[in-house]
């Protein structure tokens, strides 16, 4: 009995609307082992995990847990089976005390009232095992991101699960945090816990996993024990991404540097940022790297007129300084394209309506009328140019994630952008659309836009950028370009704020 795998997933499929996210997923998790699932974002990892957590129901396929066929119809059903899940966004409550977060919805009662004493007693040992010395009565928001991640894991562990599922648990962690997390996971394994660990950082997965499953486009393409993995296979997994990035287009002559329009930032301060200076020229893609809280998002917000700067010495190509509002930014052809599609898309409106956002909505010149006929013509043009597979009158929300992102890009293309700020433009979309969007970014640069690209996926930065600015705790930690551009060096810069000559112990690099 104890030889049978703890979890068996067979032929699981799931699609949303017309988008197939899981096509034919198989997975076997042995008892007492750490099983890593790796794949690019958009490959189906999170959906697989949501199926196992009972948040999403599969269209077909079978799941066996502990040798018995299981239907996981709700998060509660998963909990009853003994599956503990730590999601990418763990759903914690930053304003509430740590204790309240640990016992959400299962607060121990004493005479009908929530007993804080019992909560403390129950969690004390566990927190010590996890190496967490925190004030459990302080609000969760006071803790660092690494500690918060461990609290999320502790919350799952308090239910004594037999299988612990972690979805990209280190996305908010720096290297020290990741090491600590791994130590905790190894400790749990030693106690016989089975774990499923989803990640898009291959090196991480290789460091912790006993078994490894690579998934792509909703299928498992490779499943092996860590030791049996040959170096050629390792290389192959690492190369999955190579074809993703198009070759640089060189339309702008590089020699006429002085004549090219440029964005000059000198000593910019605001938000978390202090004394930021750099120039970005038309025709190049400047990558912006930094962990959460490093100030990269502040920089984008400042340049787009979303926040006010303390010290603003910025010169845009049109000769003016920072825009004061987003409206002013849009009118000066400064664009912000965010991967957070809630920031860019009106789901219940047609594609044609969405594409008029800037041309009609933001500008106050041109016709005072909104002409649906012109909107449809505009949409038809962009649909053809960007190969959005739909009709102008279709609701934007019914498109696939990639199609939605193209609509967001297209509405800015309509105004002929001069400065384009990308904030994780390819987050959560399928591989095919990703390639198309990368090609679009290249094209925009080649046609004379100044492109700033922020991404959490380092390979996206190294694959697309001409040079990368690394941010650490509100200041510019360094710039790398050309042959120096590799994930390890970059990570060193953004995590520690300085480049250590030969930091070969750096092992983190992402797959996608």
């Amino acid at each position, binding site marked *: 009995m104890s030889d049978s795998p703890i979890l068996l997933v067979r032929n699981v499929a799931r699609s*949303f609307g017309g988008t197939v996210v899981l096509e034919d997923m198989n997975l076997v998790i042995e008892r007492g082992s750490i099983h890593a699932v790796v794949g690019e974002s958009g490959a189906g990892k999170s959906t697989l995990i949501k199926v196992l957590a009972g948040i999403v129901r599969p269209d077909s396929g079978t799941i066996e847990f502990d040798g018995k066929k299981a239907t996981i119809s709700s998060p509660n059903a998963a909990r009853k089976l003994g599956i503990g899940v730590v999601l990418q966004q763990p759903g914690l409550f930053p304003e509430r005390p740590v204790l309240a977060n640990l016992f959400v919805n299962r607060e121990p009662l004493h005479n009908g009232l929530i007993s804080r004493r019992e909560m403390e007693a129950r969690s004390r040992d566990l927190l010590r095992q996890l190496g967490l010395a925190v004030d459990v009565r302080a609000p969760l928001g006071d803790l660092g991101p690494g500690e918060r991640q461990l609290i999320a894991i502790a919350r799952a562990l308090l239910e004594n699960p037999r299988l612990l599922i972690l979805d990209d648990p280190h996305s908010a962690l720096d290297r020290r945090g990741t090491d600590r997390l791994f130590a905790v996971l190894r400790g749990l394994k030693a106690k016989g816990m089975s774990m499923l660990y989803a990640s898009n950082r291959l090196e991480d997965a290789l460091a912790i996993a006993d078994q490894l499953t690579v998934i792509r486009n909703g299928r498992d393409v490779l499943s092996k024990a860590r030791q049996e993995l040959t170096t050629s296979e390792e290389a192959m997994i690492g190369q999955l991404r190579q074809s993703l990035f198009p070759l640089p287009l060189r339309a702008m002559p590089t020699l006429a540097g002085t004549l090219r329009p440029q964005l000059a930032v000198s000593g910019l301060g605001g938000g978390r940022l202090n004394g930021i200076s750099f120039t970005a020229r038309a025709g190049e893609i400047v990558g912006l790297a930094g962990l959460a809280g490093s100030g990269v998002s502040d920089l984008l917000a400042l340049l787009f007129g979303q926040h006010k700067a303390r010290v603003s010495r910025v010169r845009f190509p049109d000769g003016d300084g920072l825009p004061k509002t987003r*409206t002013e930014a849009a009118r000066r052809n400064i664009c912000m394209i965010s991967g957070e599609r809630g920031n860019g898309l009106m789901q219940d409106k047609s594609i044609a309506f969405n594409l008029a956002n800037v041309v009609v909505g933001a500008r106050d010149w041109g016709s005072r009328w909104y002409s649906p006929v012109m909107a449809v013509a505009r949409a038809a043009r962009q649909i053809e140019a960007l190969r959005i597979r739909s009709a*102008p009158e279709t609701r934007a929300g019914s498109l696939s994630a990639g199609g939605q992102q193209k609509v967001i890009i297209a509405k800015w293309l309509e105004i002929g952008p001069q400065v384009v700020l990308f904030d994780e433009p390819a987050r959560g979309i399928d591989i095919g659309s990703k390639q198309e969007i990368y090609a679009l970014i290249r094209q925009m640069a080649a046609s004379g836009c100044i492109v700033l690209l922020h991404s959490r996926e380092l390979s996206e930065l190294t694959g697309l950028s001409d040079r990368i600015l690394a941010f650490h705790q509100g200041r510019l930690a360094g710039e790398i370009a050309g042959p120096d551009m590799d994930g390890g060096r970059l990570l060193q810069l953004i995590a520690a704020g300085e480049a250590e000559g030969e930091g070969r112990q750096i092992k983190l690099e992402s797959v996608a």
Partner: protein
Amino acid sequence: MTRTDTAPPLAGSANRRPGRRIRLPAETGAAVGLAAMLGLLGWLQPSSVDAANLSSLLEQAALPGLLAIGMVFVLAMREIDLSAGAVFHLTATFAALLVVAGMNPWLAALAGIAAGAGLGLINGLLVIALRLPALLVTLGTWWMIQGLSLVVGKGQTIAPPGADGSVLATLSGKAFVIVPVTGIVFVVLAMAMHVVLHRTRFGYRVQAVGSNPRAAAYAGIPTGKVRVLTLVLMGAMAGLAGVIHLGAQGAIAPGDGGTFALLAITAAIIGGTSLSGGNGSVIGAVIGMLVLQAILSAMTLLGVDAIWAAFATGALIVLALAIDRLVNLWRNRRAGHGEDNLLG
């Protein structure tokens, strides 16, 4: 530039071109409801659907209907204005006092409309300064404005002396023998505002803000300005209704227009305007208001005690909300929505 080819060959999309479903206009439900109500009225008492009675139905619908026109814009922006009825009352009181004080009725009428717009401006500025939903802000200003009209009007009916040939007298008259002037103003304004909502930059912005305020802000749409302007429009419509009320009735009594804000919201929702913002139909709101007035007439005809009218109005709001919600749920389910962001 009138006719660009609207359907060029879509490259590489032949295989997945979604079939075009026949979409019923948003006003369909309200139109069916109105037809049913008129049918019922005619069946109860054939004489109640003759020209005279229908135009009096229109006249009754006109005043709250003007508020409903403004309310469609507010709802399409995903906001709600509770203070509209109080604004109506205060502007009517204000204009009446100006006439009593000897001002030219035309000027008094203009001043009344401007006062309404001004109250809307105050609402709007509070909304953007406090970054609160208009629901909360207008909940407060509703009480304040109501209190003010009590103070100003001293809790009494104000009847300015009639002045022949003035705007106020004109409004109480009839054009083409039978059609009430208020009704004409109402219908013409509704059609104009329908065009404004669907065919102008301002209307586009209102819908964009209502559909997704965050995306609208990120696209550079001046959301604050749109919010203020929409609430100013709402206030001006309420002011206009107040002035017309004064002209048609010749007096403003305490309690007049107390239910107008809710009537306007109900009419808008019956007319196919969604509470979740993003779209609206002014024509639908007009039909919705006619449905409401027809229901009230039907209750009178059926001999239902007038006391029950309020209950029925309330029940209708609940019904309209339930339908709005169900339709949305149904749509989202069909689009595979409500669980977006699951990719990856």
